[in-house]
């Protein structure tokens, strides 16, 4: 398995077939790999509970900093894209709509955009003003 050949193959696929479906497929893979990596990281953070409550609190506090709250916005956008596109693939498969995939990708992007705006609206203020972080700064 040659990783360079694979990238070459992917680039060739995009060149030969430059429609929205190809980009949707490519993004689905990238977001999927990112989410799999996140799953293991998340389980690693949570597994600190096996060493007791204080170990858990210590590790959880490590990932409740402003930078991590910004990364969480990226995480939720990754989840939403993968979820919207995954649902589209499922609908296409179950209802035989692959001929209409271009229109469906447009719907997917529109739904994703709405979800992304809502997520930003809810999460950005929290990333900028985390109550516990501010309390910590006030003490120090």
């Amino acid at each position, binding site marked *: 398995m040659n990783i360079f050949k694979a990238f070459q193959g992917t680039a060739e696929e995009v060149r030969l077939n430059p429609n929205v479906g190809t980009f949707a497929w490519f993004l689905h893979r990238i977001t999927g790999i990112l989410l799999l990596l996140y799953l293991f990281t998340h*389980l690693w953070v949570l*597994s600190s509970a096996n060493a007791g409550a204080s170990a858990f609190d210590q590790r959880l506090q490590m990932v409740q900093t402003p930078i991590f709250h910004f990364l969480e916005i990226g995480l939720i956008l990754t989840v939403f894209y993968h979820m919207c596109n995954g649902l589209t693939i499922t609908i296409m498969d179950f209802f035989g709509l692959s001929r209409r995939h271009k229109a469906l990708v447009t719907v997917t992007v529109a739904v994703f955009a709405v979800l992304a705006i809502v997520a930003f609206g809810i999460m950005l203020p929290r990333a900028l003003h985390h109550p516990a972080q501010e*309390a910590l700064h006030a003490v120090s």
Partner: protein
Amino acid sequence: MNQAVATRGALFWLMQRVTGLFLAAFLFTHVKVLHWDFNFTQASSGFLDFSFVISRLHGSIGWVIFYFLFIISALYHGLNGLWAIVLDFRPSRGIQTTWLAALWAAGILTSLWGLYTLRSFYFGGGGPA
């Protein structure tokens, strides 16, 4: 391709769709009970911590089952997705077998690790309190 292999491929394809749908439902529930409820009702108490998680999971076999199903669905979906990517690289039969063994091992070990962690939440924390 023989019939058995084709049927197995179709089963894995269907499972990928089914676990994907499950994951969407699991994820919204998980975010609601352990993140949304914290951020919008108790955030002023400080950082999300062990006591908050325990207030949901301690002694609740229902949540343990929910989270175990969540973990195995996510692992199946993620590792099977990775397998599809591996196949796109058109590896040799030997490399395929190695990948398959590694993915199954990762899936089984991580499921057990997740179950062990859930046990800690169920019993109110492992190790020294």
